[in-house]
Every structure is written in C-alpha cells, then in structure tokens.
C-alpha cells in the first residue's frame, strides 16, 4: 500500500469520525486499537472510549483484575485517537512521554475513558485521560501524555510531510 493511500485512508476515517459520528473506520485502521477491541462514540463532552472486558486482558487472574499495561495501552490509544480526530491529523500523533497513576482496582468489567486536550503551540499537545468502570467520578486510573503533532502549513492547507521510513525520522532531530 502506498504512503498516499495510507494517508487517504486516515483522512477519510477522520472525516467519518467528525462528520458522520462513525469511529469504526478509524478504530479498525489502527491494529492495536482493533486488537484491544476498543470502541468509541462522540458525546457532547467529547469522544467516549470503551474497552469491553475480555478474559485475555486480565492481569492478576486470582482477583481477577484488568492488566495494568492493557489499561495503559487503552488510555494512551484513546489519547492518540481523540487528538487525531480533534486536530484533523493526517497521521497518528507521536507519543513523547506518558505518565499514569493507578487509583483503584480495575475489575473484570468494561472500562471507559475520556480525554481532555491542551495545545502547547503548533506542534505539541498535552492530553489528560481519565478511565473508569462503574462511575466517571471514581476513576480507576488517570494519565497524561505529550504528543507531537504533524506541522500543518495553515496558509495552503498542506501538511509538512513527516513520513518516509527510518532514515527520514532519524534526520529530524526534534523527533
């Protein structure tokens, strides 16, 4: 698949998310999101993400409790996808760092997450993620991630191409 068609797929998926309230295409485009079984829907309060419970997401089987890493992966992916849609990105943003606080036991049931995005200039976003099971006011974990966004030349609408393979990325010191 060519770079152009991959970008086109993402642009189309973002458009469907924003205009048709359909997150399906975007979620199925990102293998890890599909592997986790993530779902999402738009609400008045931003995108609401879901991680339906599955036996192979369990960490401590004796409790049972959701694996902390699976929960982290879900929250980070929620932040990436929420930002891709909100900021109309043509590529999935690049995580720079991720900080997670576990607050409560996450049991064998569905988990939900919501994100709050703060822009830090043109290229950086800070996203706060909160995840919960029974009640949004008693989260199981909260996280904060910094993302590097693609540079958009707003005058022409063109995107600064930050793709190519390993050599292209190595050359750009900021990454």
């Amino acid at each position: 698949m060519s770079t152009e068609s991959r970008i086109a797929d993402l642009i189309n998926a973002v458009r469907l998310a924003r205009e048709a309230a359909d997150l399906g295409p975007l979620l199925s485009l990102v293998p890890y999101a599909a592997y986790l079984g993530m779902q999402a829907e738009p609400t008045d309060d931003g995108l609401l993400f879901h991680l339906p419970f599955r036996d192979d997401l369990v960490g401590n089987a004796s409790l049972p409790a959701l694996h902390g890493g699976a929960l982290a992966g879900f929250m980070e992916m929620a932040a990436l996808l929420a930002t891709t849609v909100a900021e109309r990105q043509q590529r999935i943003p690049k995580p720079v760092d991720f900080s997670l606080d576990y607050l409560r036991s996450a049991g064998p049931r569905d988990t939900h997450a919501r994100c709050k995005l703060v822009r830090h200039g043109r290229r950086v976003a800070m996203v706060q993620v909160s995840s919960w099971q029974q009640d949004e006011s008693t989260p199981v974990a909260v996280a904060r991630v910094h993302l590097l966004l693609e540079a958009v030349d707003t005058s022409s609408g063109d995107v600064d191409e930050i793709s190519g393979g390993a050599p292209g990325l190595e050359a750009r010191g900021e990454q």
Partner: protein
Amino acid sequence: MTQTADSDDALRRAAKSYREYIPHVKALGMTVSDVQRGEDGLVEIVMDLPYDERLIGDPQHGFLSTGVMTTLVDSAAGLAVFCSQKQPQSIATLDLRMDYLRPARNREKLSARATCYRMTGKIAFVRADVIQDQQLLARSVSVFMMGTRGGRRSTKAEATQ
C-alpha cells in the same frame, strides 16, 4: 554455594512460569529471558515480546504501539518487584512513567529490562528500558506498592468495587 544455586534455579523457574498466571502476558506471547538477583537481593528481569502486526500503533509506518511497550514494562517491572520480595505480598502498580525515545521500526522482538533498585516495607522502585535490535526505544520509572488494601487485593470487597 549449592543453596545459592538452588535458590537461583527456583527464582528462574518461578519467574518463567509467571506468564501462566497472567492471561494478558500469555496472550501477547511475552516470555522471561533473564533473571538476575543483585548483591542487595533485588531482582532484574528481562522480558521479551515477539513482533506481531496486530500490535501496530502507527499504521502508516508499521511501528509497534507505544502502549504495548508500556504493557511489557509494567509486566517486567511487576515481576521484578515480586521476585525481590522477602515475603510474598500482593503488589500493585502505583504509577508508571514512560519516555519514548525512538519508534519500534522493524520486526525484531521488543525486550524490557526491568530493575528493582529500592524496596522499603511498603514501596518498591523500578527502572526499565525497552530495547529493539540493540536500540533503546523507551526509558521508564515506576513505583509499586505492596501489601496494602489500596491496590488490587484479593478481597471480595475490592473485587466487586
């Protein structure tokens, strides 16, 4: 000398059987490839994750997701803490930080080297690196709590919370 060798073997066996008790670790095919106990009695674990296309986070470049690196670190760090304990207590991750230095850009396995470097009665400190093909992809610090009711404890009340 024999006693040390026996307990090292027991440690290695316990660490390698870890995946049998953690469904998500087993589902991802993670395995323990090294276990070392330091002079201070604290343990370093190396855990591997085989490449899998289903774990890609950036579909345009084929990079494995950073979320799966976090899963690998959390698992390796948790095991390092568990193996470092003098008496077995329940453990739970309190917080975990990841710095992403490079993307996972090829099809080689990921490895996390997690070192428990300080343990008090209630708290354990771990640092971990994620490596692919001899390149450092991510650096992490995490803190675990032990034996307290606040974490993921095996009481009915907690489980039905």
